[in-house]
C-alpha cells in the first residue's frame, strides 16, 4: 500500500498542510470528474502485467527501443479495446504506458495519421488511412533536414514532376538535404510523409507534402533508391529511432502528393491552395501542448526535489540540535519554491491556451481567422518562455538534490534529457521569441499611427495617450503594492510596455541608419527578445492572478495566492534592472520585494510537500527513488544499485582481462 511505512518526516509534513491536496489536484485536472477518470486510466495501465518491465535505466539503447515498440503495439490495441478516443485520455494512457517518455509510434499517431486526415483527399484517405490505422502502414513525418530546421523555406529535398510517367521524382540533392531527426524514421516506419520543394513545368512551387513508401512491406527492407537508418545516440530519446532518409531518383505516383489543398494536375499544371493561415491552427495546438509539457516536467522535478529535501538531513542550523531537513535552509527554499510557483503558473497558462484554442477552433473552421495571428504570436513566445524556464528549472531541481541528483535513480536526469529538445523542436526558441516580437512591433506601430489594438497587447494603447509627455512611458504610471497580485500585474505590464517601446524605437533608429530592413532587425534582435520575454512574463503573471478569483475553496485560494505572489515578486527580484531603469519601482521597493520573497519562502515551506503531492504523480510515473511518495529513499537506492549492469557478476571480467595481467607484469 502507498501509505504504509511512510517516512516520518514526510508524514509530519503532510499532517501540517493547511489545505487538502485533493482539492488542488481537481483544479489542476479541470474538475473532480477528470481526476477520477485520469486515475481510472492510470490504474488500467499500471495494473496491466503487459506493461511491466525492468527498470529502463539498466537497459541498452536497443533494449529500450525494443521495450518501447512492444509496449506501443500493445498500447494501440488496448486503446481500441477500451474504446479510449478522447485526445486527452489517449495522452494520459500513452504517458502512463511510456512513463512520460517518447516512443517510436509517436510520429505515426501524432503526425502521420492527423496529416492524412487534414491534408489528404478522400481518395488518398481510402488508400492510406485504414492500413495506417491498422498499422500495416507505419508512417512518420519527415520535415527537418540535416541543414535546415526551423527555417522551412530553406529545405532542399526536391520532388520533380514527370508528366510522361505521371510520377514525382524525389531527390536528396546534397548532404545537407538528407532528412535528419524524424522520430520513428530510422527503423520503425515503412512510409513517410516527406516535405519537399515541388518542381513542375520547370518552376519551384515551394514546400509540399508527399507520401513516400520507404521500406518493403513484408521484408521491411529499404526500397531501392532509399537510404534509411538511425541517426545514432542522443542526449535522451533512447527509445526513439530518430532517423535519416536519403532519396535518389525515387519515383512515386502523382496521387501520392497530399492534394486536399494544392494540386498538380496530370499535365503538370499547378493549382494553388486557398490560404496558408490554416496551418497556424496546428502550430498553435502543438505549442500549447509544449506549454503544458513544460508545466508537467517541471512539476515532476519539483516533486522529486522537494520530497527529497524533506527527507534529507544535513549539517546544523542550531548548535547542538539534530541535523535539520535541508528544506529548512533558506538557500534550498530559494532554489526550489520559486520553481514550484512557476510550475503552477505554467499549468494555468497551458490550460488557458488549450481552452482558448478550443474556443476559437470553431471560428477557424468557419473561416474566421481574426483571432489567430495574436494567438499564434502569443503561443510562439509562451512556448519559448516556458520551455526555457522549465529546462533550466529541472536542472536547478536536480542540482538541489546534490550528488544523488546526478544518479539516474533520482529520475531527474531522465526528465531533463527528455524535456530539453522542446527548446528546439516545433520552432527554435530564439526564433519563436522573434516571431512574438514581430507581432509586438507591428502592434506598437499600429498604435503609433493612431489605431487601437486589442487582446493581450492592448496595454500598448496607453502609449499613444502618453505620447505628449517626453519621458519613458512607464516612468510615471503605477504605484505598486507589493502584496497585491493585481498591482503586480500592472508593474509587469509597465515593464513590457517599456521594453516593447524601447525595442521598437531602437529598431526605428537602426532603420534610419541602414538600408536593409533585415539588417536593422538583426541589430535589434537582442532588444526584441527581451521585449518578447517581458510580454510573456506579463501574460503569465496576469493569467495566474486571474486564476485566483476562480478558486472557491478558501484554503486552496490562500496557498495559491502565496505562490502567485512568490512567482511575481521573485520574477521582479530576478529582473530588478528592468523595473528600476523604467522607474516602476525604486530602490527601497526593490529591497522590500527581496525581503518579501524570503518571507514568502518561509510561509510556503509548511505546505511545500502538500503542494507537490497535489500534482499527483504516481511513483511509477515519477520514476525516481529520491521522490518516492513514502520517502524511503536510502534503502531503495541500495536496492536499485544492486541491479546495475556492472554488478551482474561478483568479479567483473575486466579484472581477468586487464587488471590481473597488469599486476603480474609490474
Amino acid at each position, binding site marked *: 500500500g502507498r501509505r504504509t511505512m511512510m517516512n516520518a518526516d514526510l508524514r509530519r509534513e503532510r499532517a501540517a498542510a493547511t489545505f487538502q491536496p485533493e482539492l488542488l489536484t481537481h483544479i489542476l485536472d479541470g474538475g473532480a470528474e477528470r481526476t477520477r477518470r485520469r486515475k481510472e486510466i492510470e490504474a488500467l495501465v499500471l495494473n496491466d502485467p503487459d506493461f511491466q518491465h525492468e527498470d529502463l535505466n539498466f537497459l541498452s539503447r536497443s533494449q529500450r527501443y525494443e521495450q518501447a515498440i512492444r509496449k506501443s503495439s500493445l498500447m494501440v490495441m488496448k486503446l481500441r479495446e477500451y474504446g479510449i478516443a478522447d485526445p486527452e485520455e489517449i495522452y494520459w494512457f500513452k504517458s502512463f504506458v511510456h512513463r512520460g517518455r517518447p516512443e517510436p509510434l509517436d510520429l505515426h499517431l501524432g503526425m502521420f495519421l492527423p496529416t492524412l486526415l487534414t491534408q489528404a483527399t478522400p481518395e488518398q484517405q481510402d488508400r492510406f488511412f485504414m492500413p495506417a490505422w491498422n498499422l500495416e502502414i507505419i508512417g512518420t513525418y519527415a520535415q527537418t533536414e540535416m541543414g535546415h530546421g526551423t527555417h522551412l523555406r530553406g529545405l532542399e529535398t526536391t520532388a520533380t514532376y514527370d508528366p510522361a510517367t505521371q510520377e514525382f521524382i524525389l531527390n536528396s540533392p546534397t548532404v545537407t538535404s538528407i532528412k535528419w531527426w524524424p522520430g520513428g524514421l530510422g527503423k520503425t516506419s515503412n512510409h513517410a510523409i516527406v516535405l519537399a520543394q515541388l518542381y513542375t513545368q520547370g518552376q519551384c512551387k515551394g514546400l509540399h507534402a508527399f507520401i513516400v513508401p520507404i521500406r518493403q512491406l513484408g521484408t521491411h527492407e529499404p526500397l531501392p533508391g532509399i537510404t534509411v537508418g538511425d541517426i545514432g545516440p542522443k*542526449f535522451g530519446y533512447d527509445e526513439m529511432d530518430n532517423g535519416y532518409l536519403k532519396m535518389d531518383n525515387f519515383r512515386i505516383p502523382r496521387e501520392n502528393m497530399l492534394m486536399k489543398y494544392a494540386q498538380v494536375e496530370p499535365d503538370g499544371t499547378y493549382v494553388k491552395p486557398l490560404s496558408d493561415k490554416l496551418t497556424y491552427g496546428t502550430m498553435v495546438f502543438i505549442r500549447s501542448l509544449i506549454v503544458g509539457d513544460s508545466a508537467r516536467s517541471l512539476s515532476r522535478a519539483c516533486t522529486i526535489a522537494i520530497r527529497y529535501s524533506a527527507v534529507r*538531513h544535513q549539517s546544523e542550523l542550531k548548535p547542538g540540535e539534530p541535523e535539520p531537513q535541508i528544506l529548512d535552509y533558506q*538557500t534550498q527554499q530559494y*532554489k526550489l519554491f520559486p520553481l514550484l510557483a512557476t510550475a503552477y503558473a505554467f499549468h494555468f497558462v497551458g490550460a488557458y491556451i488549450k481552452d482558448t484554442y478550443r474556443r476559437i477552433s470553431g471560428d477557424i473552421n468557419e473561416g474566421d481567422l481574426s483571432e489567430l495571428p495574436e494567438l499564434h504570436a502569443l503561443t510562439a513566445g509562451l512556448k519559448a518562455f516556458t520551455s526555457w524556464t522549465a529546462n533550466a528549472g529541472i536542472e536547478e531541481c536536480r542540482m538541489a538534490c546534490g550528488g544523488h541528483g546526478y544518479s539516474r535513480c533520482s529520475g531527474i536526469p531522465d526528465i531533463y534529457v527528455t524535456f530539453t529538445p522542446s527548446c*528546439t523542436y516545433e520552432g527554435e526558441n530564439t526564433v519563436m521569441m522573434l516571431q512574438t516580437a514581430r507581432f509586438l512591433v507591428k502592434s506598437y506601430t499600429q498604435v503609433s499611427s493612431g489605431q487601437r489594438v486589442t487582446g493581450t497587447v492592448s496595454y500598448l494603447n496607453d502609449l499613444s495617450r502618453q505620447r505628449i509627455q517626453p519621458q519613458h512611458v512607464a516612468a510615471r504610471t503605477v504605484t505598486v503594492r507589493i502584496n497585491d497580485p493585481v498591482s503586480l500585474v500592472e508593474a509587469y505590464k509597465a515593464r513590457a510596455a517599456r521594453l516593447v517601446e524601447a525595442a521598437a524605437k531602437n529598431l526605428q533608429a537602426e532603420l534610419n541608419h541602414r538600408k536593409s530592413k533585415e539588417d536593422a532587425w538583426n541589430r535589434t534582435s*537582442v532588444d526584441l527578445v527581451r521585449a518578447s520575454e517581458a510580454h510573456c512574463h506579463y501574460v503569465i503573471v496576469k493569467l495566474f492572478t486571474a486564476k485566483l478569483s476562480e478558486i472557491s475553496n478558501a484554503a486552496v485560494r490562500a496557498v495559491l495566492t502565496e505562490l502567485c505572489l512568490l512567482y511575481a515578486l521573485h520574477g521582479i527580484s530576478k529582473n530588478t534592472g528592468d523595473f528600476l531603469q523604467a522607474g516602476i519601482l525604486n530602490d527601497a521597493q526593490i529591497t522590500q520585494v527581496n525581503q518579501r520573497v524570503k518571507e514568502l519562502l518561509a510561509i510556503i515551506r509548511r505546505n511545500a510537500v502538500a503542494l507537490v503531492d497535489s500534482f499527483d504523480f504516481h511513483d511509477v510515473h515519477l520514476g525516481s527513488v529520491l521522490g518516492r511518495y513514502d520517502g524511503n529513499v536510502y534503502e531503495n537506492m541500495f536496492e536499485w*544499485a544492486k541491479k546495475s549492469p556492472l554488478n551482474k557478476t561478483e568479479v567483473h571480467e575486466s579484472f581477468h582481462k586487464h587488471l590481473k595481467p597488469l599486476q603480474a607484469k609490474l
Partner: protein
Amino acid sequence: GVNPDLANERQTASFSVEKLTAWLDGGAEQTRLRRAVVEAIERDPVFSRENQYFQSQNERYEAAVRKAVHLQKKMHEMGWSQEGPESKYIYRAVAGDIAFLLHRIFMRSISVLGSDEQIAKWIPPASQYQLIGSYAQTELGHGTYLQGLETTAVFDVTTQEFILNTPKISAMKWWPGDMGRSATHTVVFAQLYVHGKCHGIHPFIVQIRSLQDHSLCPGIIAGDIGPKMNFEHIDNGYLMLQNVRVPRENMLNKFCEVQPDGTYVRRGSQKINYFTMTSVRISLISSEAVTPLMKACTIAIRYSAVRRQSKLKPGEQEAKILDYQTQQEKLLPQLAAAYAFHFIDDYLQELFDRGYREIQRKNFDTLPELHALSSGFKATVTQYCTSGVEICLRACGGHGYSLLSGLPSLYTKIIASCIYEGENTILLLQTARFLVKSFMAASTGQSVPPSVTYLAAVKPSKCPAKNKSDFLSPDIYTEAYQHMAVRLISSTAAKLQDLIQSGVKKHDAWNRCTVQLAQAAKAHCHYIIVKNFAEIVAKLESKAGIQKIMKHLCDLFALHGIFSNAGVFLHDGYISGAQMDMVTASYLDLLAIVRKDAVPLVDAFDFTDKSLNSALGCYDGQVYQRLYEWARKSPTNKQISPAYEKYLKPLLHNTLSKL
C-alpha cells in the same frame, strides 16, 4: 579540404593564432611539449574515443580499465613520469576517459596524511599497481558536511585493531570512484572511537578485495552504484563494512595517532587538511571547468560559422548563424568567460604557490584567504562554465542534442563539478563568512588579506561615464564591479548585524541572510575576475595584436556581466538608467567586433579533432559529411534489432486488422 566558410574566418584573423596559443600555454616550448604528448596518445588506437558514444556502461568501464593499464606501458615507453612536465598534458589528451583516477587520490592522501613508515609501506606497491586504491569519504546520507559522516572505527585495545562498521544504511559509503569494481584497497573516513569517546573523522586504509582472485574480503559488501548522467567509465561504488578489523597501523597517523594503550595523540596542525582541499579545488578549475567550456565554445562557434540558416539580406545566400546578433549574444560572452577564467586560474595558481611556500615555512597566515578564495572561485567558475556549456549546447539547435556533437557529454560531465569537492552553495557561504569577517575587520581599521583590502575603501559615489565609449575603460567598469561587491557585502553584513541586535539568534540570522550572502560571495569573485582580466590586458603592451583582441574580450566579459545583472548596478544609483543604456549599446557593439575573430579565438585553444570528439566542431568544418558518416557507424544501423522480428513484424502483418 577545409570548408570555405571556416577558411574565410581564419583568413581575416586580427592576430596570430599560434602566438596566442603559445601565450596561453605559458610559452612556445610548453606548446611544443603539449602537442608531442597529445600526438603520442592520439596516435595510439587503444586510446581512441571514436566509439565512446555507442558503448554501454560495461563497455565504457572495460575500455577505461584497458586504457589505464595501457597508459602505464605507454608512459614507460615514452619515458614520461607522474611527476614530469608531461603529466598534465596526458590527462588532457585522454580527456579524463580513463580508470584509476582515484588511485592517485589514494596515493596522495597517504603521502599527505600518512607517516613516513606508512608511506614506505603503501606507496611502492601502489605505484606498481600491486594494489588499486580508492578514497571513501562520501556516504549515502552525507556529503559536503563531513562531521555528519556515520561510519565508525572503534579501537580494540586487546587486539590492537580498529573495528570498522556501517551502523545504518545512510552510513554506507556511496559514490567513491574506482571502488565499485576495481579497487582492492580504499581509504575509509570514519568516526574514531577510543574507550567510548568519539574523536571525530579519521582516515583508515582498508582492504576490500582479495589480491588473488579479486573477490570481496570478509565483512565487505561493495558494488557499483548504477548508471549516472555521465562517468559511465567510472565504477563509482558503495561499501558496507561489517565488523571489519584493520591493524592499528592502518590509521593514517601523520597528524593523529592512537597509541597501543588507546591514548589519542594529536600533532601538527589540522589546518593542513584545509590545504589539501584548497589544492584540489584550485586544480580542478582548469581541467574540469575551463577546458570543457573552451571545448564547448570551439564546437559551437565553428559550427555556427558553418551552419547557414535563413537570409539576412534578400537575394543573398543564407547567412551563417554566427552573424545573427542573438547567436552572438549566446556564444561570445561564453568565449570571453573562457578566457577570463583561464586567467583567474593562473592568478589562483600563483596565489597558491606563494601560500604553499609560506606553509612550508610553517606560516599558516595565508590559509584562510586561500581557502575562501578557492571555495568561492571553485563555485563561481564551475557554475558559470556549466551554464556556459549548456548555452553552447542549446545554441547548436537540434544537432547539439546528438551525442555525436560532443556537447551532451561535455555538459553532463561538467555539471558534476558543481557538486563534487564541495557543493557550490555551501562553498559560496564559506567565502561569504570570510568576506563578512573581513568587512567587519576592515571597517574597524584592522588589517585584512590583500584580496579584500578594497572593502575598506568605501567611497559612495556615482559612475563617472558620460558616453558609451567610457564603458570601454577598464577603470570605469572595474570600479563599478568593486562598488557593487562592496555594497552587497556591506549591506548583507549590516542586515546580519541588525537581525542579531534585534534578538535573533546568530545561526538563525545567518540562515535568514544566506541568499544574500551567496550573492555577495559571487559578486566578490566576479569583481576579482574582471579586475584580474583587466590587469592581464594592461600587462600585454608588448604583444600589440594580442592585446587588442584580449582588451575586447575583457570589455565584453565585464559589460556582459553588467548587462545581465543590471539590477544590482542600478540599485543604489551608482549606474543610472541612461548609463545602463550606454552599457547595453557598448556591449552589443562589442559582439559585432569580437564576432570577427571568433573562430581564430577558439582555434587558439588548440584542441585536436580527436580531443573534441565532435562531428560539429571539427577543424575542417565538414560538419554534415561527418555527422552522416559517423551516424551510419552506429550499432543501431549495423546490428539487426530483435525488435523487428519480435514486435514490428507481427504488428505490420496485420495482427491489428482483426480489431
